[in-house]
């Protein structure tokens, strides 16, 4: 933000290092932003109004929200460290979706209410499964200096 701001510049403000938040990254960033808002508001409502009903499900929703928020912030910040951190989070997210998805199918009784990751994210058009995979592909690709 410390740029002297050339007055004629109408394009994107600056090329971020690695550019993980530009091009296809923009779409990814938007989707992660939407899921952050969705998962966070959902878990806030659930945790504050009826925590006792399904504590495990609601805590997992909150965890999912945190992971989404972290990836969103990383994509906005850009740079090599953020890229690595986001990549790690995408792995964690994929692991989370697969674990929770399998868990909900094996022992539905542990989950009286759904989480974002229940049934592999079926209630969310399977986007919770697709997102980390595309995220990892994109973050790997942008390391090679693609722009």
């Amino acid at each position, binding site marked *: 933000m410390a740029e002297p701001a050339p007055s004629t510049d109408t394009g*994107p*403000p600056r090329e971020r290092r690695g550019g993980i938040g530009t*091009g296809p990254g923009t779409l990814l960033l938007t989707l992660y932003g939407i899921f952050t808002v969705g998962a966070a508001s959902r878990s806030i409502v659930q945790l504050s109004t009826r925590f006792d009903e399904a504590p495990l499900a609601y805590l997992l929703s909150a965890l999912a929200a945190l992971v989404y928020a972290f990836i969103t912030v990383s994509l906005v910040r850009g740079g090599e460290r953020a890229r690595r951190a986001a990549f790690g989070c995408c792995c964690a997210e994929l692991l989370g979706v697969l674990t929770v998805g399998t868990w909900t199918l094996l022992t539905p009784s542990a989950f009286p209410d759904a989480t974002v990751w229940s049934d592999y994210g079926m209630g969310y058009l399977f986007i919770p499964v697709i997102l980390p995979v595309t995220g990892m592909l994109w973050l790997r690709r942008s390391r090679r200096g693609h722009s």
Partner: protein
Amino acid sequence: MLTPLTVVLTVAALALAAWCGWAAYRDQPTKDWHFIGMAVVTLLALVQLAVGIVRLARGADPAEGTAIFVAYMAAVVACVPVVGLISLTERTKWGSLTVVAGAVVLAVLQARLHDIWGGGNGG
């Protein structure tokens, strides 16, 4: 709630998604006409917000709670302007695809909004 408005808004959002999807398919960023389309959808969302608030003020009681209902309506109003701004900074087909994502989310939110308002009572 007002089912015809919900349906119109859903259809408008999906049309916007298809339109911007077409632009992305042709490798184009969002243009002025797309922004007019986004403005129309946003206007409809604002009308819905107004109708919703009036209904609440008259004592209506959404099946899943007033707070959730208002939060969803606010999200409906916000989502297209936000993706519109993002597509202004991303002048490629990816900007267009971002608008597609936002418009589809709006359509999904409409379905949820319908549930939140009526539950199973068809209200």
